[in-house]
């Protein structure tokens, strides 16, 4: 299916509309707060809080605009394309790159086997090579990688089209790993599909991406929207639901805004090798990390560089059959977020890079704001507490010789309530509209039906609201660490079971609990009436260890007669490549409960 092209006027119209709306709402919220604060005269703290509300509301409104654009932009049907007779065969050669870094080898290479089988079922094996690009630092894991790789090529008969190489020095981390491959072998391929160790893609989706690259010679990078799969914990399943239910809509809004200057999320994306080689050789930034050294969030920069060189970068949200795994608990999420925070803040060095498209610069600003904006809320809460201390005493007789009766301050509580409703509306409305849209269009069937979809949406909203203060604290710490020059390094991603006990959760979050306790005690001492207002923030902080441990536990099964909460389409009707992967892994690791590959006859035959 040919991808729908985005016209430039349409892109600019969408950008202008979203920006004007977000800025307008930001100023409206700021003005409303000033009116509320003027009841007892405007103080410096009112201006500060108004400014913080303005910035926070702009950021919320900007996100809401993306959701609304995604809902109301013309949607193209989702496809898991099959090779029909009238579809032109692909001509180019593609390298499928699987970078690994201290990962457990069997699941990673079983994914490769499943993807290879999926391509073989389409008769396309001769067009694709796999390269396992290991940056593993642990020699024992590296030895296991080699053993499993030999089994992989033996079972798939893949000698000459699957390669394994391990770098002795992991210069430039993942970006350097890919770069090393292109510098040595890039000229042998037209396209490269860049994956992560936990990526899994249908052969038909990969083939369709090649076809789209061949159909548009200006297309330098094509990003698919990977869905999170295999989540088991309460936290992981909530994230998995979000990624499947909301993300396609938000991504469609993003695609409308980005036009030809689209995103690269670092994996599950195809690049034109020549374009990538010409444009994406990353320099090492002057100075030490976190702001200098190798570029950490390289994907955003590579997308900007491709666009700078005149190539189109596009995300096609209609491409199904693209999967990844996600963190199973809040601690792992926060660790990954710490790395992303450093990478995004490092982009502040590149805002003025020569020749970048204005939208690429704005994408960098958005990435930075994603980590700075939550601090505005923290600043607002802090300033609100400080405002009590600094508030002037009420003067009921400002002109004592000219008035008989006291002057009472205006009661503008209604304005504060309006403001709160508006802000909560921006937070909740896009997600609720997505739920309504899913029920209306029948999309909710994949999520257990309209009722289960709504139940999951409401539970996700509640859950994300409860954990928001904990996330806010982790983000605040990340930003502070980066600003004070602490480098996060490149920790290995934890995959698989992420269950945490209370002691482990306490060790990782006691500082949040103690900060919450200290904050509540301080406010109680200062102005007891305010404690109730701060409880929605203070209580989740106080109980952060319990929250983290509880949410990391495996979520319960479905109740009788009801679909399981946070059901996603990948659970109701798993993609054939997922079933094939599970089957292969079960055979390899000798586990008894190997599921049948079901609708994937080719992998079943190969691994029976």
């Amino acid at each position, binding site marked *: 299916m040919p991808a729908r092209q985005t016209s430039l006027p349409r892109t600019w119209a969408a950008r202008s509309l979203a920006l004007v709306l977000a800025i307008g709402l930001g100023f409206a919220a700021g003005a409303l707060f000033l009116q509320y604060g003027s009841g007892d005269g405007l103080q410096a703290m009112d201006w500060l809080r108004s400014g913080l509300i303005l910035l926070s509301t702009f950021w919320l409104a900007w996100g809401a605009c993306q959701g609304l654009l995604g809902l109301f932009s013309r949607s193209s049907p989702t496809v898991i394309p099959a090779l029909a007779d009238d579809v032109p065969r692909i001509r180019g050669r593609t390298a499928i790159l699987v970078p690994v870094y201290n990962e457990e080898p069997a699941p990673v290479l079983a994914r490769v086997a499943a993807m290879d089988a999926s391509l073989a079922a389409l008769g396309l094996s001769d067009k694709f*090579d796999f*390269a396992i690009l*290991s940056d593993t630092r642990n020699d024992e894991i*590296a030895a296991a990688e*080699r053993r499993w*790789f030999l089994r992989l*090529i033996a079972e798939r008969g893949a000698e*000459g089209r*699957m*390669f*394994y*190489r*391990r*770098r*002795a*020095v992991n*210069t*430039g981390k993942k970006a350097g790993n890919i*770069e*090393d*491959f*292109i*510098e*040595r*072998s*890039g*000229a*042998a391929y037209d396209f490269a599909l860049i994956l992560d160790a936990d990526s899994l893609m249908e052969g038909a989706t990969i083939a369709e991406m090649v076809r789209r690259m061949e159909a548009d010679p200006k297309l330098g990078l094509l990003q698919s929207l990977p869905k999170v799969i295999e989540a088991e914990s309460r936290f992981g399943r909530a994230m998995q639901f979000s990624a499947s239910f909301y993300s396609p809509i938000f991504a469609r809004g993003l695609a409308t805004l980005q036009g030809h200057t689209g995103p690269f999320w670092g994996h599950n994306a195809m690049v034109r090798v*020549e374009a*990538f*080689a*010409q*444009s*994406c*050789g*990353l*320099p090492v*930034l*002057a*100075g*030490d*990390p976190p*702001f200098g050294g*190798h570029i950490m969030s390289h994907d955003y*920069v590579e997308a900007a560089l491709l666009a700078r060189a005149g190539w189109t970068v596009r995300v096609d949200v209609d491409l199904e059959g693209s999967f990844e795994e996600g963190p199973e608990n809040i601690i792992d999420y926060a660790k990954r977020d710490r790395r992303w925070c450093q990478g995004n803040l490092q982009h502040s*060095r*590149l805002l*003025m*890079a*020569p020749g970048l498209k204005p939208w690429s610069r704005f994408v960098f600003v958005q990435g930075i704001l994603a980590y700075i904006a939550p601090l505005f809320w923290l600043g607002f809460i802090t300033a609100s507490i400080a405002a009590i201390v600094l508030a002037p005493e009420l003067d009921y007789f400002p002109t004592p010789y000219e008035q008989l009766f006291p002057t009472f301050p205006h009661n503008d509580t209604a304005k504060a309530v309006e403001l709160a409703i508006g802000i909560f509306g921006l937070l909740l409305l896009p997600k609720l509209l997505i739920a309504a849209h899913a029920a209306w269009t029948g999309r909710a069937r994949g999520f257990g039906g309209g009722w289960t979809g709504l139940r999951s949406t409401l539970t996700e909203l509640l859950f994300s609201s409860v954990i928001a203060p904990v996330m806010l604290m982790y983000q605040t710490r990340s930003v*502070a*660490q980066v*600003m*004070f*020059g*602490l*480098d996060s*390094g*490149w*920790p290995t991603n934890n995959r698989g079971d992420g269950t945490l006990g209370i002691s482990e959760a306490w060790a990782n979050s006691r500082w949040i609990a103690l900060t919450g306790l200290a904050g509540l005690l301080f406010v109680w001492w200062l102005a007891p009436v305010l404690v109730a207002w701060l409880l929605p923030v203070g209580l989740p902080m106080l109980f952060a260890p319990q929250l983290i441990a509880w949410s990391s536990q495996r979520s319960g099964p479905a109740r009788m007669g009801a679909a399981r909460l946070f059901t996603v389409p990948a659970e109701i009707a798993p993609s054939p490549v997922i079933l094939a992967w599970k089957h292969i892994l079960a055979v390899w690791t000798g586990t008894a409960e190997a599921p049948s590959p079901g609708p994937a006859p080719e992998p079943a035959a190969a691994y029976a």
Partner: protein
Amino acid sequence: MSFEKGDMLMQDADHVGTTIGALPAAPLAMPRQVLERPSTLWSRLIAVFGAGVRTRGLGS
């Protein structure tokens, strides 16, 4: 794990440790892109300020 100080020195060495299967020998150059403008008085001032913040910070 922090950034290895020796990385830049190793850049030109053959740093492929292990290979299984003959990777196609088809080199393709990746020229380094220019992302930072030549330093100006302003950028040097920012660098000095940044270094000052870092030296006083938790990282040092």
